[in-house]
């Protein structure tokens, strides 16, 4: 759909192929995903447990890891633990979290561990290919639900000047998050706000950074209410 057109080969700057590792404990899901992904995406490895995943990622050094949030093995931390175990590669390898879970704690935990985005497993093949290219290009991928969580956690009032800049979203970032939550693609967001797609991506990356780094009390409170901490 529009998503695939807007992102894809264009934004990723990808004359090269994107190398991907699939991490999921269900073989059926892995093979389905492999078939769904665009042929330009090269799957270089698969893993079903935390230990396997860390080993495969260290060996293959892929561009993108498609990572299930819930994984057996390790200390029980699932996808979060895989990211922590591959921390030294975070500058070259990007993680895109995949899950069937809608629980806020899963989403936020894996993003705060360092994932560059979060999509649900019901997403179509074209959309996931687009998301892979986006993440490979250094951008963040926000599903409508993740945008909703962000708005819920940070509040919908724009930042005051007095606030720590990590603690609130700017008016523009709020607008972008709202549109994404409403189901807009990046291209549609850009059109709606009269800005370029690149600017939209910058805003989304800024929000991702805030989500990962913010220690604001409201985020903590929000997380505690949902039993995250």
């Amino acid at each position, binding site marked *: *759909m529009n998503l695939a057109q807007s992102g894809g080969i264009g934004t990723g700057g990808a004359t090269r192929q994107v190398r991907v590792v699939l991490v999921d404990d269900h073989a059926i899901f892995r093979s389905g995903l492999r078939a769904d992904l665009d042929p330009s995406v090269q799957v270089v490895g698969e893993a079903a447990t935390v230990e396997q995943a860390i080993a495969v990622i260290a060996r293959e050094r892929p561009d993108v890891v498609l990572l299930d949030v819930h994984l057996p093995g390790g200390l029980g931390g699932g996808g979060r633990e895989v990211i922590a175990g591959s921390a030294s590669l975070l500058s070259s390898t990007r993680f895109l979290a995949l899950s069937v879970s809608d629980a806020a704690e899963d989403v936020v935990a894996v993003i705060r561990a360092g994932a560059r985005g979060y999509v649900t497993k019901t997403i179509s093949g074209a959309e996931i290919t687009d998301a892979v290219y986006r993440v490979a290009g250094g951008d963040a991928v926000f599903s409508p639900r993740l945008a*909703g969580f962000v*708005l*819920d956690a940070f509040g919908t009032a724009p930042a005051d000047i007095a606030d720590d800049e990590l603690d609130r979203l700017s008016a523009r970032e709020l607008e972008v998050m709202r549109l994404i*939550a*409403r*189901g*807009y693609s990046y291209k549609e967001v850009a059109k709606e706000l009269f800005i370029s797609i690149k600017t939209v991506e910058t805003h989304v990356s800024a929000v991702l950074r805030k989500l990962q780094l913010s220690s604001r009390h409201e985020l903590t409170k929000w997380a505690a209410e949902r039993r995250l901490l």
Partner: protein
Amino acid sequence: MTTAPVRPPLVRRSDRFIAGVCSGLAAHLGLPVNTVRVGMVLASFAGGAGVVFYAWLWIMVPTAYESARRQAGRPASPIAPAVSREPVHAGNPGLPAGSPPAAGSGAVVPGVSGAGMGAADAAAGSSVGAPDGPAAAVPPPLFRFRDMRYGKEILLGVGLLLVAGILCAQLLGVDVPLGTLIPAAAVLGGASIAWMQLDETRRAGLVDMTKANQTGGWARLAAGLALVVAGVLVMVSGSGSWEQTWLALLASVAVLGGVVLVLLPWGLRFWRDLEAERAGRIRETERAEIAAHLHDSVLQTLALIQRRAANEHDVVRLARAQERELRGWLFEDPGKDSGQLSDRIKAVAAEVEDLLGNVVEVVSVGDTAVMEGHEALIQASREAMLNASRHGAGPVSVYLEVSGERAEVFIKDRGPGFDLQDVPEDRMGVRESIIGRMKRHGGTAKIISSNEGTEVRLGFPAAQADSTEGRP
């Protein structure tokens, strides 16, 4: 009413002047509230008896909310009975398994939102039998607890009567040996306070023991101990010199210390075993609940899917309905109030999804209780979702945002779009059910459509009294 022995439980209610005692009492006794209130005021002039009685009830009678909380016990438990009713629907091959209660009929408590069990429902359900409520899981202790509570009051009454009798006797000139009676009463009282816990801790062991319960127990134990020790001391010191008393005290403390030292490891191990067993039992209950749920709804749906494998539309619909139900069961916060605006919007989305088989994805930020005018917003959203599902392609995105003053709903699809001007006058869908309805209730509706899709934007100011139109 008079023949039925079943009375509503004595709880303090929310319609109140001071603490809701009178209205609760009135509901319990089946008398008009005002009669009880006037009676209470009149009684206050009789030496303040009314005031004392009021204060007594204020302290002793729980509020409806507290009572509901107490009866509801662990938040997870109401799910199992609610879910086990599911087969009635799931067994009917004409209906998708998980869907029926979500349809927003309001008649049946949906399996999942029942977890939150609104305070009002729970209060009603928790009255005397509550056969299918959480009480069913642990019936005997609950009833014992009730007996126990009355027992406590009877005990207290007997004590007060005794005191009154002694005072009367003294007034009449009979010589009462207060010097021995008071310490003896103290010992008795302390012992009974401590012993009364026994039954309650057993009850608490079956349900789970909250912190508040525990601190209360410790306070009572300490009070009982203090009373007994003081009573014994006074009794003993009355018969001998202070020096002897001190010696005896020292000796007994030493003996007690020795006994504690010897028994401590044994006691600790016993305690740890007990804790482990209790945790195991809780886990077991949870596992049983999950198993019941999986059996009742998930397996039923899987069976249905196998039978209807030829019909792709039905399979998708069944899978989606089951997914929705399972998600609600797994991820919904049981502490959250049900019946909020977001719940209603989600229920409507589920209904549309079931009706047309197209995925409707709801994202909500913030929430509010459903106010009168919100009904129009919900119905307009429903209409917009139906349109988007019917004419749009692919999933429908619904976004609800409630922030302070406003509630907004956005419904977006990726269909071919349409021009409002082209819609014939007699088509009521868009013009009447969405735009007209919102305007009549003081809200706004805007439709933006292009060849890449359509978005319906509905806005509604909060705290808006609505009187022009009931439910459509």
